[in-house]
């Protein structure tokens, strides 16, 4: 409860600034906070990345091990994505199994990676029909100052770029870098009174948890979309969101090229 009062105060401030056409931290409506990407921070993981967007921080670790393939895809590797919104990251997160927000976050990040075919799963077969590589993408929130979604998606792809398949440890061959052939980027916006605020910070979210996430691949195809929040979206705003998301994803993709 003691943080509720801050949200009330911030809400008024966000709305009053919006009426002047401004955001509370002086950003443009389509401007991201400072983004930092650091890979290889967890040496025990097969791949890892820490992403900071402003004060928001997320760690993603990639672990791999051999496992049984799905019967309908006997020669394809398997991706399993999970998100832990641990109580450390926010006064509003409770200990326990993933709630609907954690599950939604993991599934949207997963969709972006899967539908863009960023990882060529057919290269992850060890023995057709009996052994394939399982890729566990584990998202661990550390500090929620808004937009965990984009930070998680970015950390996931950065971690995959950083991943080495541990074939030697399991005695199935030589280690090799995980083949990543696309760079899906998620762009989340907050919809407030007909305004689109890209990369909302926590204080801005106090107005209402009405988001739109659009993930695109390196050819500007849309590979995932998620309207999140109980609000009504107009067609006009929707088209605007698509244009903005493609443009911002292109900018962020540049950062991944240095990874």
């Amino acid at each position: 409860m003691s943080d509720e009062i801050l949200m009330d105060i911030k809400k008024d401030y966000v709305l009053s600034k919006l009426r002047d056409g401004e955001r509370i931290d002086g950003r443009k409506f389509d401007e991201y906070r400072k983004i930092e990407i650091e890979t290889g921070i967890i040496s025990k993981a097969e791949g890892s990345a820490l992403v900071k967007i402003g004060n928001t921080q997320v760690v993603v670790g990639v672990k791999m091990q051999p496992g049984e393939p799905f019967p309908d895809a006997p020669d394809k590797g398997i991706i399993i994505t999970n998100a832990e919104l641990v109580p450390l990251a926010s006064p509003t997160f409770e200990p326990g199994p993933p709630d609907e927000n954690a599950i939604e976050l993991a599934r949207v990040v997963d969709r972006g990676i899967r539908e863009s075919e960023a990882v060529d799963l057919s290269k992850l077969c060890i023995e057709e029909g009996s052994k394939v590589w399982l890729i566990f993408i584990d998202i661990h929130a550390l500090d929620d100052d808004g937009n965990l979604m984009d930070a998680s998606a970015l950390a996931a792809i950065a971690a995959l770029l950083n991943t080495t398949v541990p074939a030697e440890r399991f005695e199935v061959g030589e280690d090799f870098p995980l083949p990543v052939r696309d760079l899906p980027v998620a762009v989340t916006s907050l919809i407030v009174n007909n305004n689109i605020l890209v990369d909302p910070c926590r204080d801005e979210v106090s107005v209402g948890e009405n988001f739109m996430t659009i993930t695109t691949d390196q050819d500007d195809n849309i590979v995932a979309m998620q309207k999140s929040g109980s609000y009504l979206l107009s067609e006009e705003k929707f088209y605007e969101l698509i244009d903005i998301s493609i443009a911002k994803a292109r900018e962020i993709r540049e950062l991944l090229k240095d990874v």
Partner: protein
Amino acid sequence: MSNVSRKIVLPGDLLSTNPKAAGYGTYVENGKVYAKTLGLLDKSNTGVRVIPLKGRYIPSVGDVVVGIVREVTANGWIVDIHSPYQAFLPLQENPESKPGRKINEILDLGDAIIAKVLNIDPKMKVTLTMKDRVCRAIRFGRIVAINPARVPRVIGKKGSMIKLLKSELGIQIIVGQNGLIWLSGDRRKVSIAEEAIYIIEEEAHTEGLTDRITEFIKKRKGEIEDERGSGNP
């Protein structure tokens, strides 16, 4: 003004062997005085105390606080004062209460108020009153939130910093001990005051902070005048 260096102390640091010297932020055990929290050590002729650098707001009787009404009950209002402890404002402690007036017409869910802590019982049940000159319902203006441990810094020695902001900007400012500050007046001047408050919160009482804040305010005021002059709304 002398530049006194204040040492940072951690919980358990020994401050004095004279139990009579034990002041705020310390505890006594076996005749020795220790620091209770992270803070700045303040040694004087009267004793030792620790000025906390962090910590949630814990109410004290007499504190002026800014709060928001969370619940309307049959005999008063439950108020959120940004503390682990909720506060209660009884009907009879609000001068606007009159027989025949509906409770939620006097103060409703979400209304902001400035009140004073009247009483705290051993279970930390906090009772508020609005029967004081400084108290009022807040119908306009802005509320700014800072770390409650920094409130003395924002107020300044003998209220000097607050007086400076008020006189330079011509706005109303009421500082709640709970780290919530009410600002009211011209929108742009209020904005400048808010920025100034964040600067004061951040920077130590370094020599010349008062001058720097005065400079900052003058500069910002100048920018507003320029905008007005060039015909911008």
